[in-house]
């Protein structure tokens, strides 16, 4: 018994990720936390997307299931689970069954190396970014399998489009990533790193997020990545693979019920995953904003209040809307529910003010806030842009983003070399 407690508590004093420290217990805890958090994030994202999109489009969005439709994602999940699971008679059963699993596995596995904080990751691989890019591109396989196994024309076209699109955007994406990795090697020893945690630590050491590095080179590389990542996740305006108006639903036309919901889950976790890469590589990962301008202990303390303040702000929104709820008796349960939700959020906020907690949660908060910004961008794109055509998409990938990526890479390398050899020899 003592040995077990010793095993568990020994990790707490280490400054490594559980995977890197080799502590199985904490690794399992982190895995459960990450995937639990991810599921909550997907549910929240589902609700937020519908609400934000609705308000952009002069409508209200879900309003019936729970106060302001808060329970809508849960209702949807139940509906999908209870739905009949249809497999077309001519479909290739095994491949049809495997496809959503592969997509979901690929989308979830990448979170193994996502660094929510210096120690808050399941593990820290020395090839972290390569692992992420590699595994996330596996989802193409699942999509092609889904399109092929459905034995139907629309899914087949959708799968072809999707594979071509993801492969060609991965090239530009890779070049942008390489230029960011180059920047990590700009230290005294000249050693770069592929580790996700190492990349953020390099930004910390250089006192500069890579988006501002060698202005505008870092910004351009970030822009290339930001465009490519939308294409990579098959979201508007690059959602050709599931272009509703053209291919009904693209590669998942023949899928229904639970299998379909796996594709849905995978799409949203892939969005979060690529946003995490962007945040880690260019936006300083878990680092708080304005580390140079507003440095010092008082500022650190002020910034450590942010997580709690955010939750209190959400709680305040809930209370404000509770007051605004119709006074009709039919709305009583909804009003109570909304107030209860506000109380829960408020309590979480208050807990986050406890110094011991806020120190540990800070990194996770800033990381999530940056990722949330990307999620909002995804929704914004969807509400604003029409859809690209296939050939235009390819043109953009190969003729615009790829040369830009190459140029940025060469320029970054040259500037870095100059800086190391001439300016600071």
């Amino acid at each position, binding site marked *: 018994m003592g040995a077990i407690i010793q095993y568990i508590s020994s990790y707490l004093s280490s400054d490594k990720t559980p995977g890197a420290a080799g502590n199985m217990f904490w690794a399992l805890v982190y895995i459960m936390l990450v995937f639990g958090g991810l599921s909550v994030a997907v549910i929240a994202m589902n609700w937020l997307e519908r609400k934000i999109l609705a308000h952009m489009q002069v409508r209200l969005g879900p309003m019936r299931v729970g106060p302001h439709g808060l329970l809508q994602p849960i209702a949807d999940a139940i509906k999908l689970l209870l739905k009949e699971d249809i497999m077309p008679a001519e479909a290739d059963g095994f491949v049809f069954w495997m496809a959503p699993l592969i997509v979901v596995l690929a989308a979830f596995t990448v979170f193994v190396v996502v660094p929510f904080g210096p120690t808050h990751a399941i593990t820290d691989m020395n090839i972290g970014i390569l692992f992420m890019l590699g595994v996330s591109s596996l989802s193409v396989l699942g999509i092609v399998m889904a399109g092929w196994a459905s034995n139907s024309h629309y899914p087949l076209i959708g799968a072809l489009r999707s594979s071509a699109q993801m492969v060609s955007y991965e090239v530009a994406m890779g070049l942008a990533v390489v230029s960011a990795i180059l920047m990590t090697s700009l230290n005294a020893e000249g050693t770069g790193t592929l580790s996700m945690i190492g990349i953020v630590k390099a930004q910390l050491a250089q006192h500069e997020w890579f988006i501002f590095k060698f202005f505008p080179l870092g910004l351009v590389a970030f822009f290339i990545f930001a465009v490519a990542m939308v294409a990579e996740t098959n979201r508007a305006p690059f959602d050709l693979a599931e272009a509703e108006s053209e291919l*009904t639903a693209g590669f998942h036309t023949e899928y229904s019920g639970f299998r379909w919901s796996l594709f849905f889950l995978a799409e949203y976790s892939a969005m979060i995953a690529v946003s995490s890469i962007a945040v880690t590589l260019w936006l300083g990962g878990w680092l708080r904003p304005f580390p140079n301008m507003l440095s010092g202990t008082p500022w650190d303390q002020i910034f450590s209040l942010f997580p709690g303040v955010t939750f209190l702000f959400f709680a305040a929104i809930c209370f404000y809307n509770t007051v605004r709820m119709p006074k009709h008796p039919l709305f009583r349960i909804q009003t109570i529910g909304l107030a209860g939700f506000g109380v829960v959020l408020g309590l979480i906020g208050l807990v986050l003010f406890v110094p011991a907690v806020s120190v540990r949660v800070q990194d996770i908060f800033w990381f999530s806030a940056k990722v949330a910004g990307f999620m909002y961008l995804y929704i914004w794109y969807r509400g604003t842009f*029409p859809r*690209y055509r296939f050939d235009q998409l390819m043109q953009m990938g190969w003729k615009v983003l790829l040369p830009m990526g190459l140029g940025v890479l060469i320029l970054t390398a040259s500037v870095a070399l100059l800086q190391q050899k001439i300016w600071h020899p």
Partner: protein
Amino acid sequence: MTDPNTTLSPLELGSHDKTYLDANELVINMGPQHPATHGVLRVILRLDGEKVLGLECVIGYLHRGVEKIGEHRTYTMFNPYVDRMDYVAAVSNGLGYCETVEKLLNVEAPPRAQHVRVILTELNRIASHQLWLGTHALDIGAITPLFYTFRDREEILKIYEKYCGARLTTHAFRIGGLQYETYTGFEKEVTNFLTFFRPKIDEYEELLTTNRIWVERTKNVGKISAQDCIALGVSGPVLRASGVKWDLRKAQPYANYKNFDFEIPIGQNGDTYDRYLVRMAEMRQSVRIIQQAVDALPEGPIMAKVPKVMKPAAGEVYHSIEAPKGELGYFIVSDGSTQPYRLRVRPPSFANLQALDAMCRGQLVADVIAVIGTLDIVLGEVDR
């Protein structure tokens, strides 16, 4: 069409290759249940990868035999049926029918009725174009304009509802004039709508006109020359976008359009982008016409002297109007009885749909969707 390259060789539908070994050509059935075929249009596409080699439209899924029904109804009884053809521009259909029968009976609606007719028809043109814009943009992937246009279309439908009780299939006009006098505050409400609507057109344009993706998706897509348009019997905004200045409101003035000052917007390239611009400009022109009509709304009777039982003298008449989608013509043969001997409708969508193949050859699948949208077809009118 004289060009042999654009005439369609019949598709071999029977030769379905089960092995997929012959992967060069893919025959795809789009519709009748498809989100972007605007109802129940069925298009059989022959594809080489994403490239369209040819296509064939299969219509008739919404056939209700409107023309045949016309032979079994009196002239008055048939009036509400025409609303069901182009159900997004029901008022224009009614105007065309009423004017045709008036021509047959040799009566003319009084000036006040004519003015109200122009106001309601032009409002209908705006409503129809709004619906077109929303769905067209939705097909191309922009989901937001749909909600903007529907929000503003609602105001027009409210005016209809107040005027005649119905929002969509209005049955607003009667043979010889109008059944109802305008309600109190009609002019004010229409004027209010116009002031409300003018900035809204800019709002739509802001989202789309200079949007890079929109321009790339629509420029040089579904191009059709003026000659091809004329040869295929295409009319309306599609024809005008190809550079032909042909608008029946000017070319063969009906109602009292000759009293109003407006322009006919035309395009040059005959592509989807020009058709978009032409329709946007038409909305602005419609606003102009309505403003003039409301300002100069005369007093007086709203109904001409029409016999209770209509028995037009034996003979035939063809009359056409500029519906939002193009030339809407009615051909009526009377044998002197209370019912038409033959009633034939020349719907604009039906003729425009013929151009689909010519426009889509050599383009990509995504363009077929854009072209179906830009043709602005209503299947109720195509199939009748």
